[in-house]
Every structure is written in C-alpha cells, then in structure tokens.
C-alpha cells in the first residue's frame, strides 16, 4: 500500500503549474491551509485562479499570494472585509478579476463537481444581480437559477488528522469548505496537524475518505493567522 504522506512541501506542491485553478479551504482563519499557501507563494506560480470564501487577511496566506501578483482571478463570497485590503488595492488597480458567488452556491458548485454532476438549480439569487446572465428555470411552480459545477485542478485543504491512506478528520469550524474542496479537485493536497497509524481513525467518524485525497503534509499545531517566515 502506498503511503500518501509527502515528506516535504516541495513534494506535496510540486505539480502546481502556472494558470492552475486552486480551491483553497477556510472560512475566516480556521481551516485555512496556511503552510501550503506559503509553499505556493514560494513557488511563485503566475495566473492562478483561487477559489476560496474570503479575500485574504492582512499580508499573510491568500493575501500574500495576491500581493505577490500570483493570482489572476478570485472566486469568493465575501471579498470586501476590511482585513482584505491587499485584494482591494489590486482590484481597484484592475490587476485582479473577481467573481462573487453566494456562499451556499459556492459550496454546492464544488460539491456538485465532486459528485460528477454538471450543475444544479437553486432558489438562491433568483431576481438578483448575481443571477444576471444565468439561465433560470421554473420547476413545479418555483423559480431557480442554474448554477454550474466548479472544479479545481488542485485543492489545498487543512485537516486535523490523517492516516496513511489519507482518510481525514477535522477540528470544529475549521472543517468548513475543506471536505467539499477535497472532492472537487483533480489533485487534492491536505495539510494536517497530525498523522496517525492505520486504523487509529474510527471509520465511523472519518469525514473525508482517502479516495478524495492525493497527498498530505504534516505541519504540527500552529497558531493560525500569524505571519510566519516561510
């Protein structure tokens, strides 16, 4: 049996190329794969499309990736938080493209991709600006917007524990988008706080089965949202 653990960040991230679409987990600070993002910053790939809920905080994580000019497009639900000033500056300068997606639609578009479906019908956004240009349908008297599946080349996610097959469990609200993104990418890279031996994770409580995980990298515990030297 192949152990999915990557011993180095380079091994975990090396496949990422210019122009790739990356699904990046996290809501606020919890569940953001900060170590993987720092690793992607160091790779200095260009023209990335990033799919993630928030537009970065301060100068670290996604904000650092944006600040370095690596990101051509951001797909997110909540871009204008005051802590996302790096994104705002580049957006105002016309240097980064933005697609705003309602948060539940963002999640479901990725879940749909992971489930092998082409799209779904949602009542969210009917009659609003965010449905402009999208097909609408009436089913049994109720109006829906057709939303398409959203797939990534890579998912960068954060989990609590992994076993050698890449089975994952999460911690509290650090779960958020991570299990869905794991399903929705061609190649899923997890950073995990801890790795455990086979059979230590109870199969009844595994959230993401290893079938959705290509490799994982062990970071240990760290305080989230702090700027670290890479």
């Amino acid at each position, binding site marked *: 049996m192949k152990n999915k653990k990557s011993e180095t960040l380079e091994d975990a991230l090396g496949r990422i190329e210019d122009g790739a679409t990356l699904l990046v987990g996290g809501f606020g600070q919890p569940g953001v794969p900060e170590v993987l993002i720092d690793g992607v910053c160091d790779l200095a790939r260009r023209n990335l499309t990033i799919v993630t809920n928030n537009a970065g905080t301060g100068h670290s994580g996604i904000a650092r990736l944006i600040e370095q000019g690596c990101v051509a497009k951001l797909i997110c639900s909540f871009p204008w938080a005051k802590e996302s000033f790096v994104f705002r500056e580049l957006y105002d300068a016309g240097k980064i493209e933005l697609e705003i997606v309602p948060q539940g639609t963002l999640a479901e578009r990725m879940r749909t991709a992971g489930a092998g479906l082409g799209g779904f019908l949602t009542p969210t*956004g009917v009659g609003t600006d965010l449905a402009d240009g999208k097909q609408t349908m009436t089913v049994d008297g109720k109006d829906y917007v057709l939303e398409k599946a959203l797939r990534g080349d890579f998912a960068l996610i954060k989990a609590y524990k992994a076993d050698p097959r890449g089975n994952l469990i999460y911690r509290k609200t650090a779960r958020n988008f991570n299990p869905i993104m794991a399903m929705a990418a061609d190649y899923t890279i997890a950073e995990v706080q801890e790795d455990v031996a086979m059979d230590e994770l109870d199969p009844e409580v595994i959230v993401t089965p290893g079938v959705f995980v290509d490799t994982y990298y062990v970071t240990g515990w760290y305080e989230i949202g702090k700027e670290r030297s890479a």
Partner: protein
Amino acid sequence: MSEQTNLLTRQQIAARAAQDMEDGWLVNLGIGMPTMIPAFIPKGRDVMFHSENGLIGMGPPPSEDEADQDLISAGKELVTMISGGSYVHHADSFAVARGGRLDCAVLGAFQVAENGDLCNWRLPNQKSGSVGGAMDIAAGSKRVFAMMTHTARDGAAKIVKERTYPLTAMEVVTKIYTDMAVISVTPDGLVLDEVAPGLTADEVQAVTDATLIMDSVGTIDIAA
C-alpha cells in the same frame, strides 16, 4: 427631533425580537445587531443557533480558558458550542438553510419592501458587495425577520413600497423589528403590530414609505 428620545436602543430591539424566538426553533443570526439576540432569549426556551460556517448549536463567547482558535461564528468571533451541537461542512450547512431547516433567520437590512423583498447585501452606489451567505439564508429560511433602524442615517425611509436597492431575496421578509416598531408582512400589506413607548402609530407612518395597516396597534414591552 423630539421623538429621538423614544427610539429603542439596539439592546431593546434585540430583546423584543428575542421574545418571538419560539421554543424548539433553529435560528440563524446575521452579523451586527442580530447577534445580540441570544442574551435575551427567555429562560427555559430551547432555541438553537446555526452559524453558516458549519456550526449547529452555537453558544456564547468563550471564557479565556474555553477559547479555541478553530471555533468561530460566521461573524468571525470566537464562540462556544452548546451541548448537543454538531459540526458540519459548508454544503451541509447550506442544505440546512436552503432545505428549510431554519425556522428563522434574523438579518440586518438596508431596505425592506412591502411585499417582503429584502435588500441587505450591496448599496446602490457600490459596484460590488460581500454577499456571503445572505442570499442562501434569506431564500431558504422558513421565516426572515429584518432587524434594523427604522430610517437611514439621512432620515430616508427604509420600509418602502417598492425597493430601490439591489435585491438579496424576493418576498421573504415576514416580520420587521426596528427602533420604532414591530411590523408584520402579510398578504394584505404591512401590519403595524406595536410601536415603541411614547410613539404614536401616525409618527411611525410618517417615516415609513409603505402604507401601514393600523387596525390594532400595541406598545412594545421594553421591560421584557
């Protein structure tokens, strides 16, 4: 502006809205004023709070010992979980919202129209907004309570015949709680249920663009 002194405080609006949270409800609270509601839920009433970042059974802010960097609300504040709560991923969290499992969502609003149209995600002069989960939650919740000041800072009416702001969700608001009144959205129109102590129904109508039905107007109990 002599009536200024008769306006409810933010706490009083939250306390009034809290009275209408029924036993057994699962409730989602928008950021800002709605997050003040849990402190005012009447004792003995079992009301659970849903936070769209994957938390069913959100509890109050933690003590220093309880604080956990991985446990936050949708407003990104540190919180706790009550016993009997659970964590879910984002797709399930929004299945709770769209799937009709939220008994109520209490959301801030820029504008509410008399047909229940909710506008709260983007100002007309902004080219873009932060929608977050507002559209999903407003579209899916069984009831949507709008909680807001009765008028804008410049005095403009926020409760209007027809919306002029960008739409969040169509015909979803069922009740409105402001610093002046409690209003129900009904098929017949907006019904003025209660006014703040010291205010008259006519004074509330004067700062409301939509026509209010005033058949039986009570007074908000601010002692509750």
